[in-house]
């Protein structure tokens, strides 16, 4: 008992007081800023292993970017990854960053379904489905629940059963073997329900895009309410993304 209390006291204050404005420590490869400097666009695009770089105008699609930093290393004057962790949005096109742009990525409030802000703004339970996820996004989701990030303070939690959930949060590129289980899990959630894609693999398939062992047809049939880029997505990106989606 006393030992427990001693340990308890030794922890000090661990929680991050304001997750909305908290910064990731040290270097964090977050939202990129692309300068207007003229470069060989094809050579620049070719540095990207996952085909995230587009040309004329030069752009980086964060839905495909694996944040490996290869483009910044090869073209340090052309692109710089800032420490901005706020990367999530509900509009897929907003993940495409064009050269010369330096503005925050935001949720388009007008495009959010009215029931999300009406019903889920104070309490949201999500069923997480890993469908080919590599366990890094899953590890970071678990970290959102630790005493530092403490996602639960916002009334947001991961539910054990889809019957208790308000939607699914998908990690991984959606392997063919998980396609049916994902569909069944989604169908088991009561309506209204939301779909969140966590991590670049979920948004575009990442390095696995085009593999015959994937089946991404779920995304053709259901509307996605939130895209959270990252490899894996940082807990701050996840929490702020969900808050931006659900809070007025």
């Amino acid at each position, binding site marked *: 008992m006393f030992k427990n209390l001693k340990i308890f006291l030794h922890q000090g204050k661990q929680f991050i007081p304001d997750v909305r404005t908290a910064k990731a420590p040290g270097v964090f490869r977050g939202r990129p800023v692309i300068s207007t400097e003229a470069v060989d666009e094809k050579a620049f695009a070719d540095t990207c*292993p*996952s085909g995230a770089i587009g040309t004329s105008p030069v752009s980086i699609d964060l839905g495909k970017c*694996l944040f490996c930093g290869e483009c910044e290393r090869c073209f340090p004057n052309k692109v710089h990854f800032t420490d901005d962790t706020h990367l999530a949005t509900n509009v897929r096109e907003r993940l495409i960053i064009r050269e010369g742009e330096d503005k925050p990525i935001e949720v388009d409030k007008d495009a959010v379904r009215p029931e999300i802000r009406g019903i889920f703004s104070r309490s949201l339970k999500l069923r997480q489905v*890993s*469908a080919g996820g590599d366990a890094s996004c899953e590890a970071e989701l*678990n970290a959102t629940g630790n005493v530092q990030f403490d996602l639960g303070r916002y009334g947001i939690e991961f539910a054990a059963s889809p019957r208790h959930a308000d939607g699914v949060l998908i990690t991984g590129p959606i392997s063919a073997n998980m396609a049916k289980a994902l569909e069944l899990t989604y169908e088991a959630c009561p309506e209204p329900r939301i779909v969140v894609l966590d991590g670049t693999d979920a948004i575009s398939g990442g390095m696995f895009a085009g593999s015959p062992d*994937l089946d991404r047809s779920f995304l053709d049939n259901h509307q996605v309410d939130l895209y959270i880029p990252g*490899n894996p997505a940082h807990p701050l990106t996840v929490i702020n993304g969900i808050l931006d989606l659900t809070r007025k």
Partner: protein
Amino acid sequence: MDNKVLNIKNGSCVKVSEIPVLSYDCFRATTLELMSDKARHCSSYFAYPCAEGLRLMMCIADDTAHDIKVFACDVNKGDSLVSAAKDCLALERYEREIHENWGLEFEEHPWYKPVRDFMPGKYKFFEMEGEELHEVGVGPVHAGVIEPGHFRFICNGEDVLHLEIQLGWQHRGVEHLMLSKKRTIERVLLAEGIAGDTSVSHSTAFAGVWEALCGIQPDKSVLWARTLAAELERMANHTGDLGAICGDVAYQLGAAVYGRLRTPIVNFSQRWCGNRLGKGNVRPAYAPYAFTEELRQQLLSDLKAYERDFLEMSDKIQHFPGVLSRLDRTGIVTTEQAESIGAVGMAAKCAGVCRDTRASHPYGVYGTMDIKPVVKDTGDVLARTELRIDEVKQSLAIVRTLLEDMPAFNTQVRPMGEPMADCFAISLTEGWRGEICHCAVTDADGELAAYKIKDPSFHNWMALALAVRGNEISDFPICNKSFNLSYCGHDL
């Protein structure tokens, strides 16, 4: 024996023509003879297309001779072969995998069930008859935030008689993509994604294979950085697992403290390479992120704070009956079982089998460090818990030793050239779960003809299935957590 096998060291590259090609009878007999020695285990066994038929490639690691015995066998597509697994259980999953990927038949195989390609909903699980028995199916979607897999229990009341584990849900086609993606940066990113919680050790294994194929010896600073990153990865994962184990026995203080102690380790990784899980920190031939004096001071102070709280918490759970009563003598894997299924890493070391690549087949700068593997002999959940605590202490010591002798860094990309033609390369690393093995074979043009990945979970899932027999089904979560095996690393 000498003319039947080629003895090579970890991280080496040989001409394919140097590898002895045996008849299947001889191949099988040689395999069984080598595997009869407990100091040896199968690190990889795979098939790849060669000329008109298939070539079987066997890689058996010898922990006392510190080398890897490699030999091959040419067979025709559609051949039916006498199973070696019927006499050596450790090979059973390899044979099933070869059957599934290439259509070879293995006669008298002990349990010919699918490895990954099981057509969800169609596969018929193992059944037992009995009025008292009932089945419990769990997954693929589990209650927690973890990866998918299906567990089928056959229980007598509360007791588990049998557990069948069906994996494959996570299959993404990594090995296929390794061949179809042609650039090194693409392949290294694939390697990081094999198991994202082990990205450092898997990308180190990839880099080892690639450097061997290209004939490059990386600088000491590169090896030093990989070793440091791998130990930080081990500490972070072990700490997180300890928190999860406490959570599963409803000891909230432990869950909270270990949960938050993982943070300074992963945050340090981010300070160093920009990614909390070490993705991006390992590239073939060079170290992309310099380790500076400022980082050194940061890490030393982070570790000092971490160690104080880690030791205090660990001392508490190791003397707290509320926790110990759930861990002690739960989920036992015996030494015989661990040896027979070819367990590696934690699953082996907790059952008295000393198998640690860092000591037996050293790579990076481990060769200069005299690593003494932590070994426990009770094989239960408590052993796997205490092993993590002891390995974290060991990693702390390794990291501090590394920090005393910090090399100068050159983060310039080093040109690699092309992989040599008609070669075979192998690279073993000790991920936090155990031995990782990557093998590559190149064709006459220097293109990859085969790339084989083996995650330690490939061996160790069977250990979990054996561990829960005779336990209450309510102890399954704690057993599962004590192994914390990789689904995606197995499913590839």
